[in-house]
């Protein structure tokens, strides 16, 4: 069963993962935030961040990684992402527009307000996707056979 002991004997794996994961997570966050300008979006970025977490778990052990990323925290982040999306969707109602109406934000006197609103939605999507995928991985890894 992988992850029940740290693979400290393989220096190549741990050092490579140590070097690569910051770039993977950075690329995931970039993908999340840059979806309005180029390829990407919250879903893709969130999955890339989760892939970074999973890579950490494979290199340093599931138990150790799960100790650093508490499942309770992950569940809170997942709910927070969904609530962030809902907040953006309903704020346009408060501003006099329709539910999830980006046009309402575009009429604000702030330059590029609609882009910021969409990026907030992408962050919400990314938070939920990244935490649910990591959460599913940790839960499956520790489940009884």
């Amino acid at each position: 069963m992988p992850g029940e002991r740290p693979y400290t004997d393989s220096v190549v794996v741990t050092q490579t993962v140590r070097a690569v994961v910051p770039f993977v997570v950075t690329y995931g966050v970039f993908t999340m935030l840059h979806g309005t300008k180029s390829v990407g979006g919250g879903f893709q970025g969130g999955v890339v961040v989760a892939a970074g977490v999973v890579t950490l778990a494979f290199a340093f052990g599931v138990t150790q990684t799960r100790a650093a990323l508490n499942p309770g925290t992950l569940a809170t982040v997942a709910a927070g992402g969904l609530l962030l999306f809902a907040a953006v969707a309903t704020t346009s109602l408060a501003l006099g527009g329709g539910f999830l109406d980006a046009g309402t934000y575009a009429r604000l006197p702030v330059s590029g307000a609609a882009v910021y609103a969409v990026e907030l939605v992408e962050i919400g999507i990314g938070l939920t996707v990244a935490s649910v995928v990591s959460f599913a991985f940790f839960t499956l890894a520790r489940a009884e056979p």
Partner: protein
Amino acid sequence: MTPAPALLVAALLVLVLGTAVVVATARDVLVATVVFGAYSLGLAILWVVFRAPDVGLTEAAVGAGVTTSLFLVAIAKTAPPTGDVAFSLRWSPRALLVGSGVVLVLGASLPALPAVGDPGAPAFGEGAAAAFYLADTARFGIDNVVTAVLVVYRGFDTFGEIAVVFAAGVAVLLVLPGREVS
């Protein structure tokens, strides 16, 4: 729009088909899982060649990355197969019938589709949604039309999708309570 290089597409299709056959016939699920990751990678490159980089990125991250790791932790709880046979194929007549039926029906609908990148395709025609999306997106200052469609025009669907992802997390927690590993 330049057509996709035929040789590259042919090579990728051979890779995808070859890995699919290996996945279907390998007896060791560990072998099947790793080859399935290669299958997803081939598909991801194919999406990029067909100018769908958003789909390609998702396929690479979900198919080759996350799904493979989820399969791996699931396989870790199973016993490896016994015996020396690496590949085997057991036909189930019913599965063969259903599988070939689906392939036949889908294949029969292929000639009705427009060619890849055909500007005369219904999606790009007069009064079609695609033309409206392309023209209207500039109003919001969003350059990636795919993101604009997902969040601005189809935002309600996307909201539902994220609710489904969250519900999937809740379902995982309910179905796999597990035990704390001491």
